[in-house]
């Protein structure tokens, strides 16, 4: 069973659809026992970092996510909340990845919206994927490059398109909206 974290900043429906299209069963839940018992946990997110983090803390979900032992996949805002802190609303994150989330400089069009390819990829998460493959991004804030970076992308500057540390994986792009390439990456995660 795949558990999708239910909280106030979810695009849970799309993630749920994508997982079901791949033939996996999934539940959308904020129940600690269900999250801990799941084979994999997906931490999706679309929205504003500050209010999302407040909600997670109020429900005690911040502690639950940090302590989950099975593979976790953060998507978009999920990735940003797994970092140390975000410039968006001066939000303190979960601190799983020791890296800051910053706002894109105003010299270009923000949000970074649309299909972009990788600069580098280095993880079993990208099995069968090449750096020319395009994935769909929508974000105004980005995680800097760091030791946990497993994929780089370039928009105005190079940033972390994906991060990994221990059982925690996270992608800045939307696997669930990135066509066949996104499906492959999601499939790779689900097969971990």
């Amino acid at each position: 069973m795949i558990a999708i974290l239910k909280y106030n900043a979810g695009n849970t429906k799309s993630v749920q659809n994508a997982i079901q299209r791949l033939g996996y069963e999934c539940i959308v839940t904020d129940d600690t026992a269900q999250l801990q018992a799941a084979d994999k946990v997906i931490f999706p997110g679309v929205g504003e970092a500050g209010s999302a983090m407040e909600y997670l803390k109020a429900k005690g979900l911040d502690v639950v996510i940090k302590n989950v032992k099975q593979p976790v996949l953060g998507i978009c805002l999920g990735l940003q909340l797994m970092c140390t802190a975000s410039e968006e609303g001066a939000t303190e994150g979960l601190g799983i990845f020791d890296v800051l989330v910053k706002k894109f400089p105003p010299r270009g069009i923000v949000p970074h919206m649309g299909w972009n390819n990788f600069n580098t990829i280095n993880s079993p998460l990208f099995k069968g994927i090449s750096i020319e493959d395009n994935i769909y991004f929508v974000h105004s804030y980005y995680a800097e490059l760091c030791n946990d970076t497993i994929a780089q992308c370039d928009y105005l500057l190079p940033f972390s398109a994906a991060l990994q540390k221990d059982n925690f994986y996270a992608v800045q792009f939307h696997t669930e909206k990135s066509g066949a390439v996104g499906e492959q990456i999601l499939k790779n995660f689900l097969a971990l």
Partner: protein
Amino acid sequence: MLKKRIIPCFDIKDGRVVKGINFLELRDAGDAVEMAAQYAKAGADELVFLDITATQENRKTLASLVEKIASEINIPFTVGGGINSVEDAERLIRCGADKISLNSSAVKNPELITAIANALGTQAVVVAIDTKLANGNWEVYSNGGRVATGLDTVAWAQQAEALGAGEILLTSMHNDGTKNGFAIAITSQVCNAVNIPVIASGGAGSMEHFRDVFTQTTATAALAASVFHYGEIGIQEIKDYLKNEKIAVR
């Protein structure tokens, strides 16, 4: 490199795709869910659905259509038409839409842009602007292009950005359905005046038109309906053409 997006647009009436010529005569073009799946497979970068009948009674029909589309396709899509409140927007996003598009309701009540952006994030809010050149001014029209608002197009686009819009969908009504090409001048002016992505719309008739709007403006996406729906230009065909013209596409 970020790619230029090609976006087929669907005018929806009672769950089916129709396309008006200059916003008037409606022709039936097909089943929305089936067409959406076909376009996603063919390589469309995003889809836009505009419910042109958008009435109270049609809201449930639209929500269930959005749910069906979301379960069928794996690319992003925007839904517009008759969204008058945060609740309307939230319902469609919950059903699986990635963005909602505001047009007349934002003109009538600009604070709605901010309210929805606060609830769902700016990335989920597209402000659609229908524009027409009248007496030397590009003026904003509302209510499906029937009502002149007195608003200047560039000023309104800037205001929409300041209020929380994450993207502008700019349709030139003169050009819409004519297949004479995108309105380059006003598209360029709007692109230069805002710092958010602009989708050019209205007038696509040939592959050269797409090239021109991408080389002569900084629009990050181009939207069209009839040339795609009636099979005059294929999605792969336009992508191959643009690649040849050294424009980055997926």
